[in-house]
């Protein structure tokens, strides 16, 4: 049997290859794998690869049933993708888009089994198997839905990506845009002239390749959630802080956060009996509090999430296991718990840090690492012997204009001289 080898077949196989590579990368790269959204998006990518592989094979051997099966695959691709994106946005699979797609998918299956859904035709110098009539219309609508959802996911990701991975997020978005918007324009043109299918597939391959490159560099792009986590705090059951970690500047006030942790500790026994987990809704976000035998863990976030609750529970469990010895000995030195950063990496690696809002955002170095010039330090210690005052002024010096230190010393001497004179003057008056 002679094979119907042509450019479209080659492009289909190339697309399938890139899609499989992309799917494998989404499987091996992320540190946190048990994420619903990622799971469904990965399924969509793999089925997408299979779909293009079937398209290539059906064209190569001019097999109509295979071509129709390829058309059917638009249904699971669209469903998986919608579920994935819905999970990203609201941690729930259901949406209006899901129901519509489900209905269209059932109709597609029905129409696909009717005679004449696809046929072999000679187009643009080679044999092709275009879908016909209602089957063609339904596959096109599902294809549009798929591309629409992909583009929407791309927009959401690039908008929510923190500054540190913005560059990769833009690369990701370029890939997504090429893959969805640009290729869809040529797909529409293909409805008029079949040669545009080659352009559309080529652009989709380039887009998918860029997408794969971006997620290889930064796998966190796959699960950038539209909410922010601010901070996690671990306290022992006496209320002493053991560990804290910030992802971004918190909207939930420190006093409120500490207050709730203290309140939870007061009702610890009852809470542990209930599973230890408590959500507290506050005006600017939510506090997830987890009470266990030795510690209370509090996490502040902008929105409640099952994923977050699970992560807090697992973090609490691992924290207690890792520091069992210190916790039993009632060790309260925060340095002893420094290595809990590893647990943050383990359980919260899918939440990118947003501590730096922009590259030009001003920063300071903690004053304990800064040293004053020797003479300044010596003179300052003479004037301000008390340690707290010294540290306060030292920290302020690094935040003040360059001449402030000289101005301070000069004002100090001026006032000292004034006080000495007044003292002498008062003494003289008393003597008289």
């Amino acid at each position, binding site marked *: 049997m002679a094979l119907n080898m042509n450019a479209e077949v080659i492009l289909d196989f190339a697309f399938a290859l890139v899609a499989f590579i992309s799917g494998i990368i989404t499987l091996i790269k992320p540190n946190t794998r048990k994420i619903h959204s990622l799971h469904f998006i990965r399924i969509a990518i793999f089925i997408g690869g299979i779909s293009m592989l079937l398209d290539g094979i059906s064209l190569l051997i001019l097999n109509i049933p295979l071509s129709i099966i390829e058309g059917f695959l638009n249904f699971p691709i669209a469903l998986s993708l919608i579920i994935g994106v819905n999970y990203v946005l609201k941690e729930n699979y259901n949406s209006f888009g899901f129901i519509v797609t489900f209905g269209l998918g059932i109709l597609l299956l029905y129409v696909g089994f009717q005679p004449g859904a696809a046929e072999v035709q000679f187009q643009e110098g080679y044999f092709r198997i275009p879908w016909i009539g209602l089957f063609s219309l339904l596959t096109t609508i599902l294809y549009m839905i798929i591309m629409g959802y992909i583009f929407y996911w791309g927009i959401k990701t690039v908008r929510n990506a923190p500054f540190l991975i913005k560059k990769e997020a833009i690369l990701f978005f370029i890939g997504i845009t090429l893959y969805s918007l640009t290729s869809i324009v040529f797909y529409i043109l293909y409805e008029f002239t079949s040669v545009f299918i080659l352009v559309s597939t080529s652009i989709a391959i380039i887009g998918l390749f860029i997408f794969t490159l971006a997620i290889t560099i930064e796998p966190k792009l796959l699960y950038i959630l539209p909410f922010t986590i601010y901070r996690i705090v671990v306290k022992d059951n006496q209320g002493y802080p053991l560990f804290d970690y910030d992802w971004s500047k918190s909207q939930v006030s420190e006093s409120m956060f500490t207050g709730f942790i203290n309140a939870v500790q007061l009702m610890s026994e009852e809470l542990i009996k209930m599973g230890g987990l408590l959500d507290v809704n506050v005006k600017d976000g939510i506090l997830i509090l987890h009470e266990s035998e030795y510690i209370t863990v509090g996490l502040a976030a902008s929105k409640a999430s099952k994923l977050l609750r699970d992560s807090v529970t697992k973090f609490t469990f691992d924290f207690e296991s890792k520091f069992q010895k210190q916790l039993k000995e009632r060790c309260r030195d925060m340095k002893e718990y420094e290595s809990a950063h*590893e647990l943050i990496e383990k359980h919260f690696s899918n939440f990118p840090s947003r501590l730096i809002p922009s*590259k*030009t955002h*001003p920063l300071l170095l903690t004053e304990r690492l800064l040293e004053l010039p020797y003479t300044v330090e010596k003179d300052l210690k003479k004037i301000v012997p008390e340690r707290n005052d010294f540290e306060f002024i030292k920290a302020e010096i*690094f935040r*003040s204009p360059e001449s402030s230190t000289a*101005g301070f010393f000069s004002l100090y001497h001026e006032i000292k001289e004034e006080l000495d004179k007044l003292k002498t003057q008062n003494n003289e008056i008393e003597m008289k």
Partner: protein
Amino acid sequence: MPYDIIQASEVMEHPSVQSVLEIAKELIYQHKTLNTELLYNTAKKKLGIPRRGLLSIIQTLLNRKILVEGSKYTKDTVMNNRFRRILYEFIKKNLGTHFSLIKSELDINSKEKNISPGRLIWHLEMLLKFDFIKKVKIKNYTLFLPSEVSADEGIIHFILRDEINYKIINKLLDSNLIKVADIYKEIEEKRELVYYRVNNLIEIEILLQKNVDNKCVMINPKMNKILKNALRKS
């Protein structure tokens, strides 16, 4: 050892992290405004660490609170300090105040009891530096005034804090010209105390001498309006 694969607990000891820290210190000592872009570019140039590794180091320094959000003070941010705001409000409310008075009043009335002289002077210097206040020298005193208040007005408020000065000026505002020798009788204060103050008031040109032989004094007409305003406020 590549930065990505070292244990979280060992991160701070990693040579690359230490090098980035040194660069951050250097930039701060050079009085440059530190930000991610400057630190990243400088460290990239000097250390040649790959982008992601360098960004991870900066991220770690932020997470460990070695690098903290904040900037050099500006006129807007310098007042974020609560005590500095209280101090400024005090100077605004108590025109013509001086160091000893500020210290004793704030020791009594503010939540920060017994603030050290060094710390108080630092706050005053910051208010001076950012032009919230100005200082005026009068005799042995350095007065602190809000920038918008004129030196004359500040001095008058300072003068009027003294009860005898207050009585003298009030008397002179009532009767335009008066003999120095009569003042102490009129205000019922000790002669030498009144003479001492009148001489001071002449010296700082709040009072003018008329009929030198009769030793009469009057309010300097230039000061009349300010004095009346100050008396109304006091």
